[in-house]
């Protein structure tokens, strides 16, 4: 177990190194360099050269990299010249709001996806199964933003059931105190994830239903409900945990579109605005944060898998 842990963490560190190199490299893909992108086409050559020197972009790449990593280790993710705000404080301001959205959406999608996926597996090839399969196919093929647009059209513009905008507030508590405004963002976010969980649960439970341990449980006289929830559900849960860790990039991506459609003041919206403004320090900081979260998610998923499933540990 310890050996596995050390190997897996070591692998993550190597990946982290590559990621930081790629991320810093992204700064240099802007035609004319990051400073030209930031100052715009009207800046004089002198201004660009001055700022290049100021920010250290005239130094060799490895020196830039070492200085940048040194700053990162001190918790300094850069400074947004457009917003006149350090990236760290921008993240501290926006990240909690995005976490609220992602957590609520994920919970809602799990609450619907897991039982409905199990229902589909038990009642496979019936009308109910086909209808739900159709719904999840829609979830797979429909872009997140289109689902969000439709929900706004139906429930905000046509019927006025819910407000078309997410809660506009700087504090998490105030956002949570407007649950009506949260409904549409959370539902449209959860819909795409629902498709993922229900498809996965359907195939996972169908695989498990023919396993030996299920036959054993039935032979011992366990009720169908106990077989389903006590045995199959618990075994499928292991893979759901892994899948949760692996879908972190998808979660981040989904949040960007939801936040743009509903003008939800989270990290995704800030990232989008930074992209429009070519605020490269913010882009860099956010990308790095999301990437580190992904690597951590994968690592935790693998470790939890090894803890929960002894077969992984000993193979």
């Amino acid at each position: 177990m310890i050996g596995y842990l050390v190997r897996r963490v070591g692998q993550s560190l190597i990946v982290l190194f590559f990621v930081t190199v790629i991320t810093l490299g992204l700064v240099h893909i802007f035609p004319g360099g990051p400073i030209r992108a930031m100052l715009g086409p009207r800046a004089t050559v002198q201004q660009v050269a001055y700022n290049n020197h100021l920010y250290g972009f005239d130094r060799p790449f490895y020196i830039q990299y070492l200085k940048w990593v040194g700053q990162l280790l001190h918790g300094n993710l850069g400074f947004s010249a457009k917003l006149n705000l350090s990236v760290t404080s921008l993240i501290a301001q926006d990240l909690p709001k995005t976490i609220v959205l992602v957590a609520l959406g994920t919970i809602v999608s799990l609450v619907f996806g897991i039982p409905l996926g199990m229902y589909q597996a038990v009642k496979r090839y019936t009308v109910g199964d086909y209808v739900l399969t159709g719904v999840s196919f829609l979830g797979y093929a429909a872009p997140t933003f289109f689902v969000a647009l439709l929900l706004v059209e139906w429930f905000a513009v046509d019927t006025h059931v819910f407000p078309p905008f997410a809660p506009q507030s700087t504090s998490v508590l105030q956002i949570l105190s407007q649950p009506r405004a949260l409904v549409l963002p959370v539902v449209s976010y959860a819909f795409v994830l629902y498709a993922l969980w229900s498809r996965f649960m359907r195939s996972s439970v169908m695989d498990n239903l023919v396993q030996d341990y299920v036959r054993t449980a039935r032979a011992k006289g366990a009720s169908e409900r106990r077989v389903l929830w006590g045995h199959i559900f618990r075994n499928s849960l292991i893979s759901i945990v892994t899948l949760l860790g692996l879908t972190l990039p998808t979660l981040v991506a989904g949040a960007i579109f939801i936040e743009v459609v509903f003008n939800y003041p989270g990290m995704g919206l800030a990232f989008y605005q930074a992209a429009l403004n070519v605020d490269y320090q913010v882009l860099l900081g956010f990308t790095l944060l999301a990437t580190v979260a992904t690597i951590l998610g994968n690592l935790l998923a693998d470790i939890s898998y090894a803890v929960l499933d002894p077969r992984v540990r000993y193979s």
Partner: protein
Amino acid sequence: MAIIPPPGTDHGDLVDATLLAPAEAPDGSAGPLTAAKPRSMLVRGWEVFAENRLALVGIAVVLFMVLFCFVGPLIYKTNQVTTNLNDALCTPSGSHLLGCDNLGYDQLGRLMIGGQTSLEVGVAAAIVSVLFGTLYGAVSGFVGGVVDSFLMRVVDAGLSIPYITLIIILSVAFHPNKLIMIFIIAVFYWLGVARLIRGETLTLRTREYVQAVKIIGGRSSRAVLRHIVPNAIGTIIVQATFAVADSILILSALGFLGLGVQAPTTDWGSMLSGGLNYLQSSQNYWWLIYPAGIAIILTCIAVNFIGDALRDAFETRLQRR
């Protein structure tokens, strides 16, 4: 069908066929049949594929979309070059079957023009990323050792960066046209393909016919290009199919954010982006949202159906062997 396998692969490989022939003989009923009338893998695959009705529906929808986007503009002629503000946001009528958008472009004609971009970029990005990913994965898996570890950690790193942030940054930097867009999508997409093909290669390289190439003095490039890649063709085609759907979705996502192909070129996602601005107004401009959104969903579901059926077709082929 968008992806056509390179010529020559459907004949199977000489070494492959001779080594596999004995394995088929004791196979009971299927053995003599296949021995009497050897059918190419693609023909057998097509038979299984054609049994899947959803897949045929998928092909019909894709064919319809292709005709609609590329032949449609020849029949339903509209002005998609200059704006016409007199017609801005006009309701659907005899002269404009699906109304107009905020700049007076006929919405039905726009749907065709936008569809051209979406389909072209989707297919091209899929081809580029699958070609590169296949070569990268096959080489990495075949060479193995330190090189393999290094190449795969690069893939891991690329896959750890949430793709949408990466693609947004690239789009902001390059203000893409169609051609650049293809590469921006492929830059992300080949990583997943590479990992998959590498896994496939790890099992293929231990096969006798690959060993045989080494023994008779064939070069590594020959083993990879003539033996490993053709034998992974099932996985490759299935991946390419899904890649088309994913690329269309990614392109439309970028278009929706206003970071996609630059005007006057448009795509289905960019058309939706225009609709967002008029959603809050008092009148219901449904024609700005539904046509483009439904076109995206229909195309992607159809392509996914085809991909699912192809996967079944190739898997069944393996089981019957």
